[in-house]
């Protein structure tokens, strides 16, 4: 469904991505984990065709998008929904208008169908009754839900999340993670980018670890916990300690 082959990206003379290869099959979930500045958001931007890599190829749903023009890319992008790190909601529009903004674009839906889709999407993210509020009137967790509802509204087959739980309190973060799992169940191909290990472990069984624009290792959680790579050990240090303490306690 999504394939990156040896993708390298330079911006303003700086190497952002270095030889990234990634393959996500239809209906599967990929988790990209790494410290901030690793190039995780850049990977999503390359997948969306917002940035064009200097080397390598990007294939979405069997279509090579690497050298497509902005206009040719439009229909490929409509297969994808993106939840931006900062939500990127349209702040001059209400919640309902945000959710249906791209619906009017894509399909020839009637007014009735559109309002049904708005209701359906907002219900899915547990935000009934917020239709007429503006993004500025919402809390951080609610904004994230609206961003997810907007991405879901036109039923994309691919969903990309950029740090969906960053900056949220634990309760809201938990419910967003549950929401992402709920969306996954409907068979959507999903990529979640995060630097929060706990969320990564709940959301996927295979994790891709990135650092300095490179992929360090792709493996299951268990194997990563026992990895001999220094960077992986550092990244998993805290959680390893917690596991040890827990084991220790349960032994006593």
């Amino acid at each position, binding site marked *: 469904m999504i394939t990156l082959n040896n993708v390298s990206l330079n911006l303003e003379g700086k190497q952002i991505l270095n030889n990234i290869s990634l393959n996500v099959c239809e209906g599967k979930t990929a988790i990209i984990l790494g410290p901030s500045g690793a190039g995780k958001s850049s990977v999503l*931007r390359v997948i*969306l065709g*917002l940035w064009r890599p200097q080397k390598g190829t990007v294939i979405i749903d069997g279509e090579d998008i690497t050298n497509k023009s*902005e*206009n040719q*890319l*439009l*229909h*490929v*992008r*409509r297969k*994808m*929904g*993106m939840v*931006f790190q*900062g939500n*990127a*909601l*349209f*702040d001059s529009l209400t919640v309902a208008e945000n959710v249906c*903004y*791209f619906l009017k*674009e*894509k399909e020839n839906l009637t007014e009735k169908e559109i309002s049904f889709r708005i209701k359906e999407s907002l219900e899915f993210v547990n935000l009934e009754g917020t239709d007429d509020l503006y993004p500025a009137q919402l809390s951080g967790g609610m904004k994230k839900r609206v961003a997810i509802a907007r991405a879901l509204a036109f039923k994309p087959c691919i969903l990309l999340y950029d740090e969906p739980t960053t900056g949220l309190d634990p309760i809201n973060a938990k419910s967003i993670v549950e929401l992402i799992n709920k969306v996954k169940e409907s068979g959507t191909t999903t990529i979640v980018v995060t630097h929060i290990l706990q969320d990564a472990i709940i959301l996927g069984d295979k994790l891709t670890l990135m650092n300095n624009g490179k992929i360090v290792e792709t493996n299951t959680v268990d194997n990563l916990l026992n990895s001999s790579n220094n960077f992986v050990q550092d990244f998993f240090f805290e959680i390893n300690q917690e596991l040890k303490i827990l084991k220790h306690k349960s032994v006593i």
Partner: protein
Amino acid sequence: METFTKILSGLQNYTLFVKDIIRGMFRCFKYKDDALREMYLIGAKAFLVALGGGLFVGIILAIEVGHQLELFGAKTLIGRTVSLGMIREIGPIITGLLLAARTGAKNTSELGSMQLSEQIDALRAFGTSPVDRLIVPRVVAALIMFLPLTLIADITGILGGMFITITTFHMDVSFYWHSALDALLLKDLFVGFLKPFFFAFFIATISCYYGIYTKGGTTGLGKNTIKAVVSSSVAVLVIDFIFTKVVWEVM
């Protein structure tokens, strides 16, 4: 040398940007709701600006010219000077400059803050062209609304001139109107009414260009808003100069 290449590459980007906009204009009916909203914001809401601007310039023009003409006993020419001046030059210029500030600042700051908060990227990511959806409606709205606004400035300017002629120079209203309308030729109306379209096009495209290429946070947005207002004002003056020159040489 470095600034020179920078200016050149800026001009190149702007030209490509304008090419996209012109292509997008053929699809402008798709987003007519957005265009209508922009027409209201940059047109209807600028009504008082055009009205006030035109009125005061007309009054000033009549006072200055009136006193000079009075010396030669040619007060009857006040009407002629004000109407020609307003319709051919000052009406379009003052509306152009006021709208360069108003529309220019609005477009750049709106699109710039959308760029900084990734809203423009969100549009692209969801398969919508920001040029078609955000910029073409703004350009179309400017093209439609600038002429009516200029007309308002022209008319209130001439009325302001009339007011001064009556109160300060104690002349009869009919003299003023006779002199004002007699002097106008079709050519003057044509020139005066054509300018707003050029002003609209350049003000809208320049300010949208600076908006959508904003980077560097709040400071960058501030800088680009200044650049947009300054370059569109300069564009208004340069276009006006070209028109005046061509009209006097050719027509």
